[in-house]
């Protein structure tokens, strides 16, 4: 009995040492071979595996299943009673581009100018943003970070939330071109333009957009002709805006269209039909539930957040929560996008609300994993737990959509990341300051 007590104390002491070591800011990610055993594995693409094993070798998942033999040299992580999920993807944020909203010099998400296809979020991602560790310990391993200003705001980037440079974090440096759709509606109560002025401005804005895109298409054609046959053509003058549009007009990089009001969504759909050679994604779509059929018919996926108030006083109180479900029911592929910066960590709760208000847990899980990966063309790397995919996954004590539940381990590109953030460090420091400091 005495021994038991001693062993218990010793174990507690070791645990305590472990905890204090974890609080160090210098803690490094572990990289190598890991075997996660006895887990309920939510593969997303291939059902749920009870008592499953996931093998990670370096950056990749090398094996998933129930009868996986664990070769030598693997670090075993017993996940008995726990759940393994693919890392969550937030499809629309400004994470890494903005540090403190009210401090202008820390804001890199809004360049001047209306048409900035050459401006890249990838350039300005700050790998040291304090918000990144805060986000990833909640199971969000990937985000689309996008510039937001003007008409064409710039190119969004898809990143892993671990790395020491934008290059080491990039999954797709140029993941999409962000377009703010010109609105044919009044902005709100403060908008004192007449209906005629609103309409006139909309038509002007739309014309500018159309001109820009058709110039880009022409530039692409001219450049392609020259590249294919440089001997017999004059070299066109350099134009970096037009150059940046080439991958957009030929459909390699999708256009993410931020659009919310019903008529604006319909207008945007009309415009996308004029460009069958380009790829489009709708984002925001707060009125999406009103025109879900039209969006589905157009085959456009949607990036949607749920935790906001209804657009109008006379909208039903639960429409924002139901919007993902109503779009899904109509046949639209939906992915979760918080639109946030410092609280992208709440992305799982956006998915949870969508699940509770009609989407269901299984579909909501897809909306925050595989759907996002498919929409951005990286389903071969991210979004599910499958052999050969990038090891972006986490271990949770329960349903990660429940804010009460905890996440115990997070892997990003095979790196077992330290479960530390400034928020956790402040907790460790201040939970018990000690009697000496209190005066």
């Amino acid at each position, binding site marked *: 009995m005495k021994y038991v007590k001693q062993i218990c104390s010793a174990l507690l002491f070791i645990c305590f040492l472990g905890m204090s070591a974890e609080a160090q800011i210098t803690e490094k990610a572990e990289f190598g071979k890991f075997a996660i055993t006895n887990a309920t594995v939510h593969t997303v693409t291939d059902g749920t595996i009870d008592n499953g094993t996931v093998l990670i070798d370096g950056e990749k998942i090398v094996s998933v299943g129930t009868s996986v033999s664990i070769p030598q040299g693997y670090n075993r992580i017993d996940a008995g009673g726990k759940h393994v999920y693919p890392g969550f993807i937030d499809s629309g944020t400004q994470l890494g581009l903005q540090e403190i909203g009210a401090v202008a010099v820390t804001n890199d998400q809004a360049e001047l100018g209306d048409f900035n296809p050459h401006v890249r979020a990838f350039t300005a991602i700050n790998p040291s943003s304090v918000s990144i560790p805060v986000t990833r310990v909640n199971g969000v391993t990937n985000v689309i970070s996008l510039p937001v200003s003007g008409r064409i705001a710039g190119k969004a980037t898809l990143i892993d939330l671990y790395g020491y440079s934008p290059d080491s974090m990039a999954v797709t440096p140029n993941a999409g071109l962000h377009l703010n759709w010109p609105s044919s509606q009044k*902005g709100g109560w403060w908008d004192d333009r007449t209906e005629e002025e609103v309409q006139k401005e909309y038509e002007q804005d739309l014309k500018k957009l159309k001109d820009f895109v058709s110039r880009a298409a022409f530039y692409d054609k001219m450049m392609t002709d020259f590249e294919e046959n440089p001997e017999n053509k004059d070299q066109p003058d350099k134009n970096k805006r037009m150059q940046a549009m080439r991958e957009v007009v030929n459909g390699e990089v999708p256009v993410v269209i931020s659009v919310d009001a019903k008529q604006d969504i319909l207008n945007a759909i009309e415009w996308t039909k004029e460009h069958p050679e380009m790829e489009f994604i709708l984002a925001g779509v707060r009125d999406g539930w009103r025109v879900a059929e039209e969006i589905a018919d157009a085959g456009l996926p949607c990036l949607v957040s749920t935790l906001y108030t209804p657009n109008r006083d006379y909208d039903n109180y639960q429409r924002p929560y139901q919007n993902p479900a109503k779009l899904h029911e109509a046949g639209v592929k939906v992915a979760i996008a918080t639109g946030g910066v410092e609280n992208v960590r709440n992305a799982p*709760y956006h998915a949870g609300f969508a699940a509770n208000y009609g989407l269901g847990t299984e579909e909501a899980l897809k909306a925050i994993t595989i759907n996002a990966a498919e929409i951005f063309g990286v389903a071969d790397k991210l979004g599910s737990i499958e052999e050969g995919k990038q090891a972006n996954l986490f271990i949770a004590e329960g349903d990660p959509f*429940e804010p009460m539940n905890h996440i115990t381990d997070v892997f990003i590109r095979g790196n077992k990341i330290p479960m530390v953030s400034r928020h956790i460090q402040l907790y460790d420091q201040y939970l018990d300051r000690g009697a000496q400091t209190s005066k």
Partner: protein
Amino acid sequence: MKKIVLLFIFIGLSLAGYAQDKGSVLIENGTVITITDGNKANTDVLIEDGIITEIGQDLSAPRGVETVDASGKYVMPGIIDAHSHIASVDVNEWTNPVTAEVSMEESVDPNDINIYWALAGGVTSIHLMHGSANVIGGQNETLKLRYGTGMDEMRFDGAPRTIKFALGENPTRVHGQGFDVQPRTRMGVEQVIRDHFDAAIDYKRNRAEYLDAKEAYENGDRSTPPVPVAKNERLEVLSDILDGEVLVHTHSYRADEITMLMRVFNDYGIEDYTFQHANEAFKVAPELKKNGAYTSVFADWWAYKFEVYYSTAYNASILNANGVKNSINSDSGELIRHLNHEAAKAVHYGNTSKQDALKMITINPATQLGIDDKVGSIEEGKHGDVAIWDDHPLSIYSKTLKTFVDGKKYFDRAEDNDDMRLKVDAEQDFEAASGRWYNENGRHAETCLQGAEIRFNKQGMKLQSK
């Protein structure tokens, strides 16, 4: 003639009904989360004429009292939001660093749809606060969410008077940087408060001396002619704060400014106060505990401005573990719709117990508003402000089914197929575009900054449109 008489009787009856605004209901077989006396399975709650009269098993409904079956459901006290700006018409009287004389009492919009949306999240009372532009802002109003009644009917009868103070960036930006008047720094904020408390003490003495002299003079004592001291509403309110008649709720973020105000309050003998937001309260939790101060914090908001950069979502748990009575508030028209879920984050960040997390949105805010003898728990004799939930209220999968204020039902999910509150076609066309879906400045709508988001320069000021 008969018709006219009937009409008058009808009007009289409807007016009487209006003034009452109380109801009776028997909620049967629910899991009752009493907050102050644990959870009670298969228990009935009887509310009669707005008051909880009985909690127990196998209660029978008095004649005419409607019965609601809550089998398999949870019955919880209505959520209380200690910091809200919904239902407000004006938020900031930013024209002076001290505007204690103004009040939110005339700024209530009982038809604000945000009230209904909050009811749909199980909220029954809010603390409608003045904004944070001034060091000593205006007086707040504690409201019951009697949606669609009138401004007066919304008031929480018997709730103590409260006032908003604000420290740090907001008042220094608006006044020091915007108008070149003190305070421009946190040092100045302290002096503004001390100057005005001193002035209130002097005023009270001088005013009393004058009134005494005047009375004596009028009673024939001509030896000391009274020197008039005019009534000053601003100083009267400040004097009431010093007398403990007005509870102080202070917008605050940094640990240093929090300790500063406790020092000032100790010097002036002010005892009952709450720090709002208080993102860095966790750093001085022992000091807060020692002074008996309360805190009302966000679950996880941070980094939208510099003074909240060194924040932690573990704030609520650290405060709770250190014995500080804490609430979780919304300060937002969106978060108020799921404060239950915000409270659940205190379980995630720091392992606060479920019971303590629930206290943070019920009895603790009630205590901070001085209404804990009336609401905040399910107890016999307390108000019939309760909500029925279909799952444990801290679960993300829970929904409010019905919300009662004073025993009267203001929200019923089952009856609200497409808006029980308004007879409009929910499919009708949309004429206004919204702001963009992404977060440009890190804040939600309906926050206390809505009026303080004023851009000042030497030429004047302009309201920033959203």
